[in-house]
């Protein structure tokens, strides 16, 4: 789809729609099973059993959860803002799904005599689109908490807002060295540039900053202050029930998958890897990130709010800026020799 055709031919459209359907199916299923996997892995870490009753090994648990969420009472606080309350969960889930459009999830394959990139849309400005969509996702938290007209929800959403924008800054800055190395915003170019060596080897610092930032962007422990069930009940989605809550919830898990996929794309060579096919490498890396997130949740306590803002503004942001300057200097000294 990189061509400048105003009207793409029908074959192209069919393939794109097929890819969109496939991607949607895969990420929704994976997100549902990620919830299940998280409960089982946390149970395993904490030496208990976890959900194992619905179906063999509890494998039908996500289906049971879906039915439960669908049949719950759909509640809207009368004093709140109905429209914003309705819109906010969608605002949290839609950008997460859309971000997946730009992630290259496998090596291009030849099908029906044409090269088919394993990517829904290979945009010139893919990385910028990711930054834009991650900014839009902040609105879900902000509007949801505000529209609920509940004090817990408001506190959670304010905290969430400040946290998300703070860590978005360090996330954006940590990707600048990646762009400098790849010399492109196009995600397929970034993957191609890592053929000789993954960027994590050249940019361990940027990778570390990016990893901490995406943990905070996912609102995961140790950065789950917007929800903080010990002090804020459920934070910004206290007043949400049924599928509205379900959308926030599934959006969070889709976000884990997408940001894991982007971390793999930016720093771990995307779908590249020896021996195995690209699809397996990519999804293996995504699941490895998901496992890491769950592991961290099972291990670390929650930060205090001042520690959280301190880490974002006083540690990660200056580190990312210094890293950009250091990378620039190093690339200049390396001269025109290709990486």
């Amino acid at each position, binding site marked *: 789809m990189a061509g400048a055709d105003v009207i793409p031919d029908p074959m192209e459209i069919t393939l794109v729609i097929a890819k969109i359907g496939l991607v949607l199916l895969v990420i929704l299923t994976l997100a549902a099973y990620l919830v299940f996997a998280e409960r089982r892995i946390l149970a395993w870490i904490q030496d208990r059993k976890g959900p194992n009753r619905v179906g063999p090994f509890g494998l039908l648990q996500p289906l049971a959860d879906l039915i439960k969420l*669908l049949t719950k009472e759909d509640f809207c606080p009368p004093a709140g803002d109905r429209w914003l309350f309705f819109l906010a969960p969608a605002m949290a889930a839609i950008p997460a799904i859309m971000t997946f459009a730009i992630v290259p999830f496998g090596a291009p394959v030849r099908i029906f005599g044409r090269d088919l990139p394993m990517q829904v*849309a290979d945009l010139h400005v893919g990385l910028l689109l990711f930054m834009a969509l991650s900014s839009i996702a902040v609105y879900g938290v902000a509007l949801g908490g505000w529209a609920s007209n509940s004090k817990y929800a408001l506190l959670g959403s304010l905290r969430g807002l400040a946290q998300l924008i703070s860590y978005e800054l360090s996330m954006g800055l940590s990707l600048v060295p990646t762009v400098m190395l790849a010399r492109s915003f196009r995600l397929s170019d970034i993957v191609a540039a890592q053929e000789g060596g993954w960027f994590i080897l050249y940019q361990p610092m940027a990778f570390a900053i990016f990893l901490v930032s995406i943990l905070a962007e996912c609102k995961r422990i140790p950065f789950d202050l917007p929800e903080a069930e010990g002090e804020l009940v459920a934070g910004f989605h206290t007043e949400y029930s049924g599928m509205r809550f379900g959308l926030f919830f599934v959006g969070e898990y889709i976000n884990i998958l997408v940001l894991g996929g982007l971390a793999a794309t930016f720093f771990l060579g995307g779908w590249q890897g020896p021996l195995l096919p690209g699809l397996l490498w990519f999804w293996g890396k995504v699941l490895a990130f998901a496992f890491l997130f769950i592991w961290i949740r099972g291990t670390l306590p929650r930060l205090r709010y001042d520690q959280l803002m301190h880490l974002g503004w006083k540690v990660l942001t200056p580190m990312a800026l210094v890293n950009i300057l250091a990378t620039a200097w190093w690339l200049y000294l390396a001269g025109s020799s290709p990486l």
Partner: protein
Amino acid sequence: MLGAYLPIIVLLVVAACFGLGSVVVSSLVGQKKLSPVKLQPYECGCEPVGSAQERFSIKFYLIAMLFILFDIECVFLYPWAVLFKRLGVFGLIEMGVFVVILFVGYIYVWKKGALEWE
């Protein structure tokens, strides 16, 4: 050029259908047994006092303003990063000066206590 963005728009429509559709289905399938107490904001059993949509700490505004400032700097860094090799030593020095000025502002903000939470 719009052709490249077409899949994004299709995905937006599909995702919106998923998002809005599941909420609509949930509101149709779910039971409805509302009571005055249930419609109150949840406050762990206490009677809610006043509205929640009130004034909140100025710190959050400050963080939002700082974010806007620093994010714009970040936006300046991106085009430079793409063209870094082509700009050569000129680009290196120019961006060095830019980041140093940015750092001066950052230190000012820090010293003014804008990054403190107590």
